[in-house]
């Protein structure tokens, strides 16, 4: 499966592996924010926030545009969607197993009923 060896997905999961960056993504889901707006709720210095934004940019989760002295960040949803697709397949795998499990249990229950009825 192509997605198993996806450097792009590696970057996305790395980017999501930090609470500050997840908080930033949540903030950005409400719309464009500048760097100080992103840094403020995290009680973070400007350079620290910039570092995190760079990781998000590198994973293409965030796009930055510069207007004068202001840096505005915007969420890019496509890589997140890919990540969701990928974890969904873990779910599909287990759903399939458990569906087979359900069928098996139904058979086991019928066999048991049959056994009880027989003298």
């Amino acid at each position, binding site marked *: 499966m192509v997605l*198993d060896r996806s450097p792009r997905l590696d970057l996305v999961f790395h980017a999501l592996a930090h609470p500050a960056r997840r908080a930033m993504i949540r903030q950005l889901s409400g719309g464009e924010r500048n760097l100080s707006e992103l840094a403020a709720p995290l009680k973070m210095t400007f350079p620290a926030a910039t570092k995190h934004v760079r990781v998000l940019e590198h994973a293409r989760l965030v796009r930055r545009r510069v207007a004068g002295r202001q840096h505005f960040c915007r969420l890019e949803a496509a890589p997140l969607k890919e990540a969701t697709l990928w974890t969904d397949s*873990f779910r599909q795998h287990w759903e399939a197993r458990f569906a087979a499990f359900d069928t*098996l*249990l139904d058979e086991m229950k019928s066999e048991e009923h049959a056994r009880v009825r027989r003298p």
Partner: protein
Amino acid sequence: MSSTSPQGLRISTPTDTTHVLTRAFNAPRRLVWEATFTPDKMRRWMLPPPGLTMTTCECDARVGGKLSIAWKNDEADPVMTLRGEFTEVVLLEHAVHTETMALASGQTLGSQVEKHAFADQGAATIMTITQTYNSKEDRDGALASGMDEGMEACYQQLDALLK
């Protein structure tokens, strides 16, 4: 991260190294336990990765008991193995076992500790599987192998539709 499907499967990642799967089954605990740990029953629900067929399935759910599963494909028999040992067993309550997946060459694909816990919910049984990996990388790698198997399940459904 946590999500629930219409079928009632709940998957969560409470820590960086664990997956927790919770699912209700419409059967008494005794039958769910039997289906989980009896080899001829396990063969029915442990869907193999794409292109592979399960050859060996041994499971002895007692403390010190072994778990041994092997798969083959067109080129090699076995092509992949799963080996483990039960470290904690309380009949019909819970069981903990180690497991290591390896290629025929001996190369290890990953190890984890798996705990199955069973609880009554009316006439149904809730099974909770907690998978604990050595590292976050190992856990996320397991997601990747799940992808292959998930895709295979889709292909099988497609095959059934096309028949």
